[in-house]
């Protein structure tokens, strides 16, 4: 064993997986996990913990894995994280825990994410759940949204002894974990549903089909239903479009629509009643994780898929692993390319994407080099489907129906980073609803901070 290298993780063969929706990464077995865990040098001043938005005791749980005591490892993780099987799969570890790992200076970082995943999967397969609260506080908290922020906040509050009800707008809890992230990256029944069961086993109630802002308002939850505090974790669900000509043609979708059909409504499965467009040649516009998810979904539905992104590979906002997987599977990257118009036939169906070539100029406000159009570089890609994956913004349904809830110019709720406190008394917020579209783990960190903030508020009330 080369101690400088990670124990490789088994994956489905790229050719095979490009045609199915089974999970790509197969994970470690006990032996592999113990072997990988032995690479951890158990730093006293562990940098990895500082890189984790929910501050998991990483050396602590890895030490237990080393011993083969997985049950104990699970209890250590679940003190800090409500969704370890999810985080082990979708966190950008390379820029968080693993990015700070001391091993990484002279070799490869310890595979913290894969170890976390192994521990969580082992606990699930062996029927082990997190421990709930022993003493109830007799106070009610409403959590709006059952995505990563809401589930984490609810789980933490329940562990402290609060009565927590989560209100979910869709018919199934999980938020972006069920509608956004595809099956092949995050299995819904085997992983997400089980983690949600764990949160429920802590005493959390989940009521689906409640659109807060429409079915009921935050003020009504407080005044009519007796909630002592509210956490808003409603995410950033509003899709952006480019505003170029032809965008309403048949065959142009937001990544949200495309992914919701496939992931939530299971339209990738021919038995589903919800249709999805089976394009022959698809362009996904954008370079984030969502773009990779949409592209890899279209690929699995039988299309030739192009990622169209206006900057270069270096600036792709997606996780390195996602880009790597996408390439392995045969996604074609058309970088430094920007769409200017969508072409359609006389019946309004997409026939092509007019693009220009770009080059990188001076860095812009985001610190990334600004793409500039190369003159006379216009060309047309012939295709039948365009998926817009340009990011999302928070849904105004809640902010527009809650008096006294301050939002910024991007319609993000203004909340204190350390406590989640908003401008409205008793109302806390966190996750994408506050930051705009970010990651699962950052939302979980915000949910965790808000649970602490709510506990402080209610303890002094």
């Amino acid at each position: 064993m080369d101690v400088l290298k990670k124990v490789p993780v088994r994956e489905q063969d790229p050719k095979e997986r490009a045609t199915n929706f089974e999970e790509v990464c197969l994970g470690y077995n006990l032996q592999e996990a113990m072997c990988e865990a032995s690479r951890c040098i158990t730093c006293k001043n562990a940098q990895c913990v500082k890189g984790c938005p929910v501050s998991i005791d990483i050396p602590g749980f890895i030490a237990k894995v080393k011993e083969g005591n997985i049950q104990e490892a699970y209890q250590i993780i679940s003190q800090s994280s409500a969704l370890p099987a999810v985080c082990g799969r979708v966190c950008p570890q390379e820029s968080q825990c693993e990015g700070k790992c001391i091993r990484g200076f002279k070799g490869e970082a310890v595979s913290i994410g894969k170890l976390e995943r192994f521990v969580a999967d082992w606990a699930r397969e062996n029927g082990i759940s997190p421990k709930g609260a022993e003493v109830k506080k007799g106070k009610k908290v409403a959590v709006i949204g059952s995505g990563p922020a809401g589930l984490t906040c609810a789980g933490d509050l329940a562990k402290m002894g609060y009565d927590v009800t989560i209100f979910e707008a869709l018919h199934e809890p999980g938020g972006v974990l069920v509608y956004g992230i595809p099956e092949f990256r995050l299995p819904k029944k085997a992983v997400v549903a089980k983690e949600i069961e764990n949160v429920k086993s802590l005493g959390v109630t989940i009521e689906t089909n409640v659109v807060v802002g429409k079915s009921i308002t935050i003020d009504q939850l407080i005044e009519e239903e007796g909630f002592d505090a509210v956490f808003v974790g409603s995410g950033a669900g509003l899709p952006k479009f480019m505003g170029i000509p032809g965008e309403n043609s048949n065959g142009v979708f937001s990544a949200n629509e495309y992914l919701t059909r496939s992931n939530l409504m299971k339209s990738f499965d021919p038995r589903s009643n919800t249709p999805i467009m089976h394009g022959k040649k698809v362009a996904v516009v954008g370079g984030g994780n969502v773009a990779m998810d949409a592209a890899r979904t279209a690929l699995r539905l039988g299309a030739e898929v192009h990622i169209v992104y206006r900057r270069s590979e270096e600036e792709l906002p997606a996780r390195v692993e996602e880009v790597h997987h996408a390439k392995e599977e045969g996604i074609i990257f058309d970088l430094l390319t920007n769409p200017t118009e969508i072409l359609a036939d006389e019946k309004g169906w997409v026939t092509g994407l007019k693009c220009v070539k770009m080059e990188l100029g001076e860095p812009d406000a985001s610190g990334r080099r600004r793409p500039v159009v190369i003159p006379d570089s216009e060309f047309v890609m012939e295709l039948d489907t365009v998926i817009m994956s340009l990011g999302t913004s928070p849904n105004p349904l809640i902010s527009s129906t809650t008096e006294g809830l301050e939002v910024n110019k991007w319609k993000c709720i203004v909340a204190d980073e350390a406590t989640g406190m908003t401008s409205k008394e008793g109302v806390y917020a966190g996750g994408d609803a506050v930051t705009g579209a970010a990651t699962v783990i950052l939302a979980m960190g915000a949910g965790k901070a808000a649970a602490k903030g709510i506990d402080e508020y209610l303890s002094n009330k």
Partner: protein
Amino acid sequence: MYKIVKAKELTTNIYLMDVEAPRVAKYCEPGQFVIVRMDEEGERIPLTICDYDREKETVTIVFQTVGAGTKMMAELKEGDSFHDFVGPLGCPSELVNETPEALKAKKILFVAGGVGAAPVYPQVKWLHEHGVAADVIVGSKTKDLLILEKEMESVAGNLYVTTDDGSYGRSGMVTQVIKDLVAEGKQYDLCVAIGPMIMMKFVCLLTKELNIPTIVSLNPIMVDGTGMCGACRVTVGSEVKFACVDGPEFDGHKVNFDEAMRRQQMYKTDEGKAILKLEEGDTHHGGCGHCE
């Protein structure tokens, strides 16, 4: 689960159901809609709210069987339940925000086509309860397909029924009735037209000529109904709107109907395929020429 307390076939392929949905019944207003799902595997089907009873905590829906989903839904009986029933979605009709005085000063004409009578009914009823008598035109292809006539009669000022084939009431399209009424000297300050997209398009072309501001209610393809997917985008004037959260009611004179009708065709073939699969079950293996 959301229990069906009443289920009735109004006419061929059009069904009415009263469903227990306390949260929806409590705050819904005319003009809004719900999304239902039959079972754990079902698709999300948007339906307009036809009526509601705040005390009994029920919401009345009316639907026509168009796809595989609504076809299966039609099989549901009293005592069965919907797996999911979410709402109220969309914005209430603008009328409910106006003062009774302002409304009484207005002459309002409702134009309902086919199953569009269902979403028109709660608006006319709401006005009736607020002391406003609105004129209503209800059009249907033929006498047998006419729905909610009695209900509409009890809340409308004047009710004009017309059938395309002349089998009942007046004869001809709703647009002809509008022309006739105006020719008879009737004046209207506002028209609310709800029905098939093609009907709304032609009503709007006519009322634009007649200078009657017109509101239409759109029912495009949608998935979540909360602004998340953008499938329901529609061009209104120079802006792109999401019908689920910005609508479903819009200024009919500004709606790009041709685009909206085109977008409704998006999954037509897939829907057709789903129906075939439903009807033919395991015996459906293609080769009929209607599918791949």
